[in-house]
């Protein structure tokens, strides 16, 4: 039998075991990067084969936590792709401004850099006070980091550069305090943020949103799951509500393509149509 068929079987079994034991469903994740994560864990835990993960997943919660912790770390930064934030500031905010209350959903907020960026932007546009930001993720390790709002100090230089490019109106240094190894974001930024566990794969809508940000999460899903998640976003948005995807993500070929219009095509900002 072909080695790769055996490997494929092992991976399927590991994903089944994770789903059975903990309810996390990675079965419809895009495979190539998920398999890398699994292989890294096999390597770092000195296992001889992928299938050795199965008894560990089933019987050793600490082992599974290691895997979940691996999964919680992605490359992100405050004001990542600053031109997106600049466009939000200039073209989406004038619309948001007209609502008496604003709900914004950071779906798959990971370690929180984006939701704090948004809070700063809203503060500078005078909108933070009437906004509730929902920052959700399936992964509690990510959520804990997000909720703490403390980031390594060596990230600050990059964050500051991005902030300036995003059209920041103040000084980025006003938003954090440092000690020698970390920077803590001002607690005031958190006041209107609700951090909550929400799993895009199985959980439903929970509020009417004016704006949904989901950047670089869809790239981890297969097409079926992408459609599921995008339909959830469509159904959560108010008519004419806004949605922004990651710079390289697109609605093309998805089941909701005709329910949205491109608002700022270059920055992947979409707007839900009136009647869908």
């Amino acid at each position: 039998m072909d080695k790769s068929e055996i490997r494929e079987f092992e991976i399927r079994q590991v994903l089944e075991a994770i789903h059975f034991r903990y309810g996390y469903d990675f079965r419809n994740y895009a495979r190539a990067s998920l398999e890398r994560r699994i292989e890294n864990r096999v390597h770092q835990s000195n296992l001889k084969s992928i299938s050795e993960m199965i008894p560990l997943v089933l019987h050793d919660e600490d082992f599974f936590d290691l895997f979940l912790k691996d999964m919680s770390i992605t490359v992100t930064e405050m004001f990542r792709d600053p031109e997106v934030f600049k466009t939000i500031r200039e073209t989406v905010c004038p619309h948001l401004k007209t609502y008496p209350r604003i709900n914004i959903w950071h779906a798959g907020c990971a370690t929180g850099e984006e939701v704090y960026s948004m809070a700063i932007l809203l503060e500078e546009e005078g909108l933070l006070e009437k906004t509730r930001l929902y920052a959700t993720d399936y992964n509690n390790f990510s959520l804990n980091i997000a909720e703490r709002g403390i980031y390594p100090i060596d990230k600050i230089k990059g964050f500051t550069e991005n902030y300036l490019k995003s059209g920041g109106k103040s000084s980025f240094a006003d938003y954090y305090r440092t000690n020698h190894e970390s920077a803590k974001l001002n607690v005031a930024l958190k006041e209107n943020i609700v951090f909550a566990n929400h799993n895009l794969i199985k959980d439903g809508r929970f509020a009417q949103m004016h704006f949904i940000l989901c950047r670089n999460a869809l790239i981890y899903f297969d097409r079926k799951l992408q459609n599921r998640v995008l339909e959830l976003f469509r159904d959560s948005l108010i008519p004419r509500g806004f949605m922004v995807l990651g710079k390289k993500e697109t609605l093309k070929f998805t089941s909701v393509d005709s329910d949205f219009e491109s608002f700022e095509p270059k920055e992947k900002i979409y707007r839900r149509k009136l009647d869908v």
Partner: protein
Amino acid sequence: MYEAVVIGVSAGGLDALSKIIPQLPEDYPLSVSVVQHTRKDMDDFLANHLDGLSPIKVKEAEWQESLKPGTVYIAPSGYHLLVEKDKTFAFSVDPPVNYAIPSIDVLFESAARVYGSKLIGVVLTGANRDGTKGLKKIKEAGGLTVVQEPKTAAATEMPRSAITNVNVDRIVGLSEMGTCLTELAKEH
């Protein structure tokens, strides 16, 4: 017969690719995917630049796009580029590998799994060791491994590391690389 080429390049890459890619014919029978380490705000400069120089079509790789023969795909900055089993591109924002995103190893290892012996892996100039592990995987999967002759490389560490750690099939100077890849594509 080969089906795909993957190329990894770092420091000195703009010049190296500007010599190699224009040598590929418009009807080159393989797909060519390139990871060039870049600054994060490079956007699609490299793809546009090479497309202007080359008879073969050069473009930035798009998410979920099918890999087609006769096309050179450049990895976008800020994302790892991977190949899925159905021969489409996948992206990730997983942590950097060898301090790099996109990482050459990430592309090479996923492509090795998909294409096996139908893959040609090429490591060019660079001042780090990204690509060595990936090239090894390509070799193990039965693919062909090609490295730029370090003497002709602007930065020698990356090709040297590949040659030291992998029993490579070909070591080729910069000016012959395009012709070499064209000839290899004709092999059965």
